[in-house]
């Protein structure tokens, strides 16, 4: 009889608490959004599932010797998982469109203002007493505006691991929501004429340029922002493997089995940070709110920068591609293309938008380096 009572006390029904139930439902909602609505499923399926596992009571999964906690310790605390993903992303990235029109790099710079505006917003909310974010937390929240998953996880893992779960969920969710978030901002800030601007066709880029560019980028990072070198170094390494043509079996593995394995482990690790006691706090709402501000401001700044460049330089730029500067590769570039087609059904902006799109990845990695360096103390 004693044993039966003991058995009953080991069940989840006996042990579970409301917050855990709520988190399990949130995990199921993430799975629903990922599977049914196509929200960044490669990440949100493991994160959502990991979130459910992390809230099962009475067993070590996301804590102690539990497997998700072990993954977190070995891959996120060390930075290994996001950096390997970044290497894979580098191996998947074609810098061709950027090389054909290098000035679009500046669009990727402007869109990073979303990061810092959000950082300021988080500190303002702290100032008025609504939340109590530290400068590290504010910086980690800001990086959501980088619209780049591995960068956000890498920075949050270093600066504010206690809110990494909320940050990752916000980053991936808003990246998935880019088709809803960006178009209103883009339409608000542009005239119909501007949206109809036709850009001159991109020149073909030689293989030698493609091999040399990541090396030039790496050297510049080394000389100017060494703190961004882990992220951009792995990124450039992946890209050199891709373009050099002599290590295709490595590049291929970096793009497929390696990035897939790490994605599974990274997603589960992030899910382990969705434990009720850490996630179901007021700060999470603040983070989610600030995250959407970050995307909106980043989009706006990218568009405005394009308009400014149009005022200054000769060759016209369709300001819609400025919105792709937030990154969210390749979604934001597709959005720019789609909004452009609304105005002129023959004006395909996709390749033009890929330039600022990958520039946004570089830009937010630079911003991440600065934040780690100066907010890390």
């Amino acid at each position, binding site marked *: 009889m004693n044993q039966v009572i003991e058995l009953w006390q080991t069940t989840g029904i006996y042990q579970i608490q409301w917050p855990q139930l709520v988190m399990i439902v949130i995990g199921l909602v993430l799975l629903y959004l990922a599977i049914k609505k196509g929200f960044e499923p490669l990440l949100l399926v493991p994160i959502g599932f990991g979130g459910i596992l992390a809230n099962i009571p009475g067993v070590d999964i996301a804590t102690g010797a539990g497997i998700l906690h072990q993954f977190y310790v070995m891959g996120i605390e060390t930075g290994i998982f996001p950096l390997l993903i970044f290497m894979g992303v580098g191996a998947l990235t074609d810098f061709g469109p950027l090389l054909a029109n290098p000035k679009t790099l500046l669009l990727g710079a402007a869109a990073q203002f979303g990061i810092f505006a959000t950082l300021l917003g988080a500190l303002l909310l702290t100032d008025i007493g609504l939340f109590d974010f530290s400068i590290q937390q504010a910086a980690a929240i800001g990086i959501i505006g980088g619209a780049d998953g591995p960068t956000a996880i890498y920075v949050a893992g270093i600066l504010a691991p206690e809110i990494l779960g909320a940050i990752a969920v916000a980053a991936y969710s808003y990246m998935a929501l880019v088709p809803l978030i960006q178009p209103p901002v883009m339409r608000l800030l542009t005239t119909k004429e501007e949206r109809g601007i036709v850009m001159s066709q991109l020149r073909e880029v030689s293989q*030698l340029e493609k091999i040399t560019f990541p090396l030039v980028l790496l050297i*510049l990072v080394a000389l100017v922002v060494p703190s961004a070198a882990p992220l951009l170094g792995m990124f450039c390494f992946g890209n050199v493997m891709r373009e050099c043509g002599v290590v295709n079996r490595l590049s291929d593995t970096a793009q497929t089995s390696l990035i897939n394995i790490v994605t599974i482990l990274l997603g589960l690790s992030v899910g382990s940070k969705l434990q009720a006691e850490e996630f179901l706090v007021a700060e999470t709402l603040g983070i989610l709110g600030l995250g959407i501000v970050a995307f909106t401001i980043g989009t706006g700044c990218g568009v405005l920068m394009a308009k400014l460049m149009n005022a200054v330089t000769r060759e016209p730029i369709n300001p819609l591609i400025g919105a792709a500067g937030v990154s969210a590769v390749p979604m934001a570039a597709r959005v720019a293309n789609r909004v452009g087609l609304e105005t002129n059904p023959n004006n395909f902006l996709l390749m033009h938008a890929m330039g600022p799109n990958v520039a946004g990845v570089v830009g937010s990695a630079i911003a991440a380096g600065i934040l780690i360096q100066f907010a890390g103390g």
Partner: protein
Amino acid sequence: MENLLYQGLQLTLLGMGTVFTFLLVLTFFTKGMSWIIVNLLPSGQPASVPLGATGDVDRQRLTAIIAAAVKQHKKSRLPHR
């Protein structure tokens, strides 16, 4: 708290300054690099007959299909237990 906001503003200035400076410099270096490669190096010009490359890939495909098939066969074994 004032202090925190001030820190944030400093960080913003530093950050956006660095990001812009970096990407501006990168723009110039990229343009320079491309100019050198396209104008000074013979190997820098894009292939004039990209079709040739495609044809090459086609030939590779045939070889690879066979290889992929053998490989795939090897995989279609018992499940791991």
